[in-house]
């Protein structure tokens, strides 16, 4: 069964297997004298510098900081002696991808093992040279030492000998109590370059002869060029080529300004195709209708119909989540250089193998003739898992015969994003006469992201994937049903920050609050009752430790002053989630003024992600996830006449500085293996805020986005 998670995690699992298997990289005899390369991911040079070949894409989540630190910890090297080099997708690296907050969780063990094995080999090499027992050797950062004889050798001096030794299968890992780096506040790897303008994002790279390309596309998805007047554009200063590509008409010019000007002068008539009447309002009505039809069962426990019919009291609510864009601050872009015998791409990609395979196929090149260089990127959030902009650059480079830097404008970004789909969720609950919940029905109506990604190939993974967050509902009820009501949709779709779970958890966590109020119970106590005693259960694909979930809930409530009186117009709301082994709860405190305008004053977030490797960035991820979700209260993408109506941050109003609440982040101390952090904080925030509004005013807001006039 392919689910989105398996789809993404396969990547890391394969990467892990390569490392665990310690597949030797073929080194030339010459290289073996100067470089110690125990596996594809690690090289140690004579000058003592280590290079970690990074299979993960840095997009702000901090992999370039924490992954080298894991390696350095076990290898026993100062952090500044480790450089990172981005892995090139291809025969050596077949499944590179970054998503699902899985980088640390999946690379933790393999990187530790790789570092520990290399360290043991260096110690063995030194012991051999000194003629002493390896067991008497130790390491200090960057050196092997032999305390009895007070001898020491730098790692670099041992490279050639270590390279000839067998790789230990089960190297001894460091006692975490002795960690020097992990658990400390590790500043961002490229921090200084990011504040001096020296960091090079994809947009900033230059190549000899590189031109700038802009594509004019049919505003309706699926439309095609019917007729184009390109002479005026061709005659403009700086314009090098105007060519047709599968997605539209591309203008290639010396500079970005010239390309934008030329693109504006194009006169294109479109065949708008079959979707020219598409409207998101009509689509919403379609989704609503699907809730009344039979869905596919994702989970069924007990007799739901009987339990609802027999309940003393029933609660029902409909929650609406709109189409959403990623709106990364650096718009999609890619650089492509296509020659008859090879192709180079420079692109901020979360999923470079997908692009690599497609580019090779399209150009009729062998895999080794295509090189995809993953650059720094101005935000990813799932947008850069897609290959569309990369392939568009390939098409423009091929058609024009020029090396091109393809730029998307902000309106392009919103109009042609692989959107997170609209989703309607209907929940029905039943309470017994004593207020005890007896029935829970959760219906999810939405198009399938996974289906779009599998390019229309059906998979049994679709239902569990699209109901994530509803399927793995942690609350125990005698009767519980989750159904998925698929709706066909014509456009590309993509995962978002927190993948597909955002609307589902929004609905679940608002509804449990509504049930609590209907039962006359405190929302925290009501949740704890439903969770039951601490134990591990399997929900969906994951084992879920309900004890850890209980702890984050009670800790967050305590830190936020849950239950303490607030002035009139203020309220606190609570929500929790579990996501790939991370447990998280948030309490939002809101103020609602006399005109109904909402201000989120404070968010308390408590997370159990196992061992926290870098608290400095862990807190940053909490703040970031919360801002992402605060934006989701405000933004939407709508369609009219087949066209996306939003064109920029003016009408896709993500949170700005002024709307930032105080965020108090706290992590549960743990020695368990680390899990992900980038996405979990997104999940509880929307319901926590809406539950807080209800606590402050009694008003239940169930439709996103909230109108602009509702924000103070």
């Amino acid at each position, binding site marked *: 069964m392919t689910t989105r998670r398996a789809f993404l995690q396969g990547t890391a699992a394969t990467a892990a297997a390569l490392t665990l298997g310690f597949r030797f990289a073929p080194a030339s005899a010459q290289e073996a004298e100067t470089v110690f390369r125990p596996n594809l991911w690690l090289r140690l040079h004579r000058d003592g510098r280590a290079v970690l070949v990074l299979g993960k894409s840095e*997009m*702000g989540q*901090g992999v370039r900081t924490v992954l080298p630190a894991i390696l350095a910890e076990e290898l026993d090297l100062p952090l500044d002696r480790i450089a990172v080099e981005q892995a090139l997708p291809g025969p050596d690296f077949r499944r590179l991808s970054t998503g699902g907050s899985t980088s640390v969780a999946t690379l933790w063990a393999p990187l530790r093992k790789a570092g520990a094995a290399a360290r043991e080999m260096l110690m063995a090499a030194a012991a051999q040279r000194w003629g002493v027992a390896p067991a008497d050797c130790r390491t200090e950062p960057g050196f092997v030492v032999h305390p009895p004889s007070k001898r020491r050798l730098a790692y670099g001096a041992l490279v050639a000998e270590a390279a000839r030794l067998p790789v230990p299968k089960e190297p001894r890992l460091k006692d975490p109590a002795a960690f020097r780096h992990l658990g400390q*506040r590790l*500043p*961002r790897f*490229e*921090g*200084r370059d*990011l*504040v*001096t*303008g*020296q*960091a*090079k*994002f994809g*947009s900033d790279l*230059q190549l000899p002869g590189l031109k700038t390309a802009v594509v004019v596309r049919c505003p309706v998805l699926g439309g095609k060029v019917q007729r184009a007047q390109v002479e005026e554009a061709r005659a403009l*200063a700086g314009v090098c080529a105007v060519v047709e590509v599968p997605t539209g008409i591309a203008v290639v010019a*010396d*500079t*970005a*300004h*010239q390309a*934008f*000007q030329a693109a504006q002068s194009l006169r294109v008539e479109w065949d708008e195709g079959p979707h020219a009447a598409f409207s998101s309002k009509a689509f919403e009505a379609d989704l609503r209708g699907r809730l009344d039809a039979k869905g596919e069962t994702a989970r069924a426990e007990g007799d739901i119909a009987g339990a609802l019919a027999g309940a003393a009291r029933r609660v029902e609510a409909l929650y609406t989540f709109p189409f959403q864009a990623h*709106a*990364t*601050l*650096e*718009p999609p872009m890619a650089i492509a250089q296509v020659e008859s015998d090879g192709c180079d791409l420079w692109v901020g990609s979360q999923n470079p193998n997908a692009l690599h395979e497609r580019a090779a196929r399209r150009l009729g090149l062998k895999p080794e003739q295509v090189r995809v260089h993953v650059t*720094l*990127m*101005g*935000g*990813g959030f799932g947008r850069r898992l897609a290959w569309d902009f990369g392939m568009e650059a390939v098409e423009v480079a091929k058609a024009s015969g020029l090396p091109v830097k393809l730029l998307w*404008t*902000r309106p392009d970004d919103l109009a042609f994003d692989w959107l997170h789909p609209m989703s309607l969720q209907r929940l029905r609950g039943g309470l017994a006469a004593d207020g005890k919940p007896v029935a829970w029905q959760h219906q999810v109506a939405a198009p399938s992201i996974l289906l779009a990604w599998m390019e229309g190939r059906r998979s049994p993974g679709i239902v569990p994937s699209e109901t994530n967050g509803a399927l793995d509902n942690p609350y125990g009820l005698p009767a519980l049903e989750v159904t998925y009501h698929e709706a066909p949709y014509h456009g590309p779709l993509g995962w978002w920050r927190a993948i597909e779970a955002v609307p589902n958890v929004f609905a679940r966590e608002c509804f449990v609050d509504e049930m609590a109020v209907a039962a006359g119970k405190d929302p925290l106590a009501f949740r704890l009752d439903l969770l039951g005693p601490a134990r591990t259960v399997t929900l969906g694909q994951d084992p879920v430790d309900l004890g850890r979930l209980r702890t984050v809930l009670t800790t967050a409530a305590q830190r936020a002053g849950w239950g303490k009186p607030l002035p009139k117009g203020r309220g606190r709301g609570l929500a929790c989630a579990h996501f790939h082994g991370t447990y998280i709860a948030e309490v939002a405190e809101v103020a609602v003024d006399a005109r109904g305008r909402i201000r989120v004053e404070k968010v308390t977030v408590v997370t159990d992600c196992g061992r926290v490797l870098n608290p*400095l*960035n862990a807190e*940053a991820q909490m*703040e*970031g*996830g*919360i*801002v*992402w979700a605060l*934006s989701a209260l405000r933004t939407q993408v709508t369609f009219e006449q087949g066209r996306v109506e939003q064109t*920029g*941050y*003016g009408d896709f109003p*993500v*949170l*700005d*500085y*002024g709307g*930032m609440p*105080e*965020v108090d982040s706290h992590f549960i101390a743990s020695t368990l293996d680390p899990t992900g952090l980038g996405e979990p904080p997104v999940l509880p925030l929307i319901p926590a805020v809406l539950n807080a509004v209800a606590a402050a005013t009694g008003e239940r807001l169930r439709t996103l986005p909230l109108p602009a006039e509702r924000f103070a």
Partner: protein
Amino acid sequence: MARFQVVVNGRERAVEADGGTPLLWVLRDHMALTGTKFGCGEGVCGSCTVLLEGSAVRSCQVSLADASGKAITTIEGLSPDGTHPLQKAWVAEDVAQCGYCQPGFLMTAAGLLARKPRPTEADLREAFAGMVCRCGTYQRIRKAVRRAAKELAQGKEVRP
């Protein structure tokens, strides 16, 4: 095409380009100063902010003709080596995540501190209004500006 003179980071530069070219693209395409970023092209997100005669402006909204003869400071010119108090504060607070928007926030903060060395929270809100950090670094931006303002204020007190 015409010839224009601008003073960028203290250096006089001649540019041959259409006078309507936005300053953003003059910096990026004609001077290879790529620290100034393209985010929206309509003067909203603030990623392209530079100082023009000491005031923070959206460089995507200033034409080359309008910038002609004027002094421009970009992120590359804020300090030669990353030692401006704002840059140090940004590193100390570990503000950046992806980092793409940060040059714009730094230059906006530089413009603010130049005219208001001890900014209030309301001043920060006004200066950063509408600017976008999609990674969500606002809380740290607040801390970093305060830290830098403090350092600047202390520097002034000890200097004669």
